[in-house]
């Protein structure tokens, strides 16, 4: 395992109370494998990843407990200075919106070689050669000239390719793709996914793929963790999860994919809102989303229903479904 996160909890101490954004989650990623993390907005997908990278602003954020073993070192015990050596060199991130993630005033070349200059102690010349190669790898035509262009001269898809090149230029062991295709249109989306997949195979990078698009997950992930209200509610191999979804939330997510509907049929959506994370949740957090509105006082428990297929099981809501 490249990364093993255990019992990670992150909270935000705000004026309006303590938001428990991530509660006791555990997951792991192996070399060359992809872990998909799905969930709706605010379910803690991104926070769960940024926590162990020191990218959560503290205060208001605070990592309550947990362990994140990366190559035998607990990242949660490192200082910001020490973490800087990991970020961008051993662990890289691709962000959601390529339009805003590049500095508009600097040339692509300057931004591409930055991780090399600070992490690998390369000379500018060496770094530029590598940068050229990396642009070629991500499929930018005319890359020799494009290298010296500015971000505003690139389209959205091309910028995302640049972001990928930038993330992979230091050959990281772990790549975190935070909704890398959400801001792109569908055709470009497919190309970008293919590109990430291809580069991952070539370099045996472990990938954590965050998205709310189950269609994307089914294409790229080896394992899937479904997050809801700061918890992982179901975790299994992609194959198991899609053939045998067990948590009602996973079922509902699958049900709401437009492609699973008949033409003219009303699109399915999950009723209700996720619980307020600043309040203590008594019983099962999924109650407000189910059709029966009476509060459920059962404590959900983490159960293995199949080999390596874990579900957060609440006896009451589980049977009722949505």
């Amino acid at each position, binding site marked *: 395992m490249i990364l093993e996160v255990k019992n990670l909890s992150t909270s935000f101490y705000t004026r309006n109370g303590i938001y428990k954004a991530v509660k006791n989650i555990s997951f792991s990623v192996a070399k060359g494998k992809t872990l998909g993390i799905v969930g709706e907005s605010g379910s803690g997908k991104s926070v769960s990843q940024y926590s162990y990278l020191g990218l959560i602003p503290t205060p208001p954020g605070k990592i309550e407990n947990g362990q994140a073993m990366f190559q035998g070192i607990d990242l949660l015990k490192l200082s910001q200075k020490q973490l800087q050596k990991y970020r961008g060199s051993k662990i890289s991130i691709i962000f959601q919106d390529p339009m805003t993630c*590049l*500095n*508009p*005033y*600097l040339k692509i070349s300057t931004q591409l070689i*930055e991780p090399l200059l*600070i992490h690998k102690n390369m000379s500018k010349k060496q770094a530029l050669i590598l940068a050229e190669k990396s642009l070629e790898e991500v499929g930018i035509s005319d890359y020799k000239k494009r290298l010296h*262009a500015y971000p*505003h001269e690139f389209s959205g898809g091309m910028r995302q390719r640049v*972001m990928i090149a930038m993330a992979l230029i230091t050959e990281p062991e772990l790549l975190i793709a935070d909704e890398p295709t959400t801001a792109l249109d569908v055709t470009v989306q497919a190309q970008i996914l293919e590109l990430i997949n291809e580069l991952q195979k070539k370099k045996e990078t472990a990938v954590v793929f965050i998205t709310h698009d189950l269609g994307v997950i089914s294409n790229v992930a080896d394992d899937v963790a479904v997050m809801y209200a700061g918890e992982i509610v179901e975790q299994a191999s992609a194959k198991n999860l899609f053939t045998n979804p067990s948590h009602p939330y996973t079922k509902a997510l699958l049900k709401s994919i437009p492609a699973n509907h008949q033409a003219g049929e009303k699109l399915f959506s999950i009723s209700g809102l996720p619980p307020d994370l600043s309040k203590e949740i008594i019983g099962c957090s999924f109650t407000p989303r189910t059709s029966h509105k009476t509060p459920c006082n059962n404590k959900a428990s983490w159960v293995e229903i199949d080999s390596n297929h874990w579900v957060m099981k609440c006896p009451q809501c589980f049977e009722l479904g949505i």
Partner: protein
Amino acid sequence: MSLQENISEIAEEEIGTSLWKDAWIRLQNNKMALIGFFVLIVMIVLAIIAPLIAPYSYEAQNLPLGPTPPSWKNWMGTDTFGRDLFTRVLYGGRISLAVGFVATAVSLGIGIAYGTISGFIGGKLDSVMMRIVDILYSLPFILFVIMLMVLFGRNFYLMFLAIGAVEWLTMARIVRGQVLTLRKQEFIEACYSLGLSNKRIITKHLVPNILGPVIVYTTLTIPSVMLLEAFLSFLGLGIQPPMSSWGLLISSGVDTMEEFPWLLIFPGLALAITLFSLNFLGDGLRDALDPKAAKD
């Protein structure tokens, strides 16, 4: 086919135009700003080479000659001591422009450093630093200058300090505001994810991005600084004769403006032209560097 070639040719030329270059191109299309820019350069050059081109000495008096109106011999006439006004305006430009640029540079340096730190670190430090600015803001400027004069005596360099001490406040506020909005931008967050240190993020990524508004504000600060100098000299708190500055020339010109109006008109014109040029240039720069206009 030929159209395609054309397009690819244009595209080739376009690659690698920075926002700065873009802004420069837009500035060139703004006639007034361009004229302002060149007039300003002429003014600066004239001030620099003043000792070489001045026809007379700026302090040698010629009392028998007295005040004479503009003539071929004295282009701008002479003052009540018989000194050549053209020479004095040239030398006065040296002081006025120097005060304008140096004091602005001082305010720029302090303002950018202060504002960036305050905005970037934020939290309690930010509140404390900004309250200090508020307190300094509330000090009456003239009182402050007079206090400095009392403490250190009349001194040319004191004026830089006095003006710089007032002007950096606004600069710090502007920079802080810019940094606050930039700090939350995703490309800065992306910098963190690449493992960049705070120092590198500030110097390499933040400061270049705030330069646009800062440059614009600078071109507007220089005139206000020059006016302050004129104002201080006018009150007798700035430059002392026989040195001259535009402010000083204007103030002595005012005394005799009914009998010898040229003594007021020429230094006034010099100051006005410079201020106009700076304002036009500042206006043009603001339009040219506007990120919203950058997309056309």
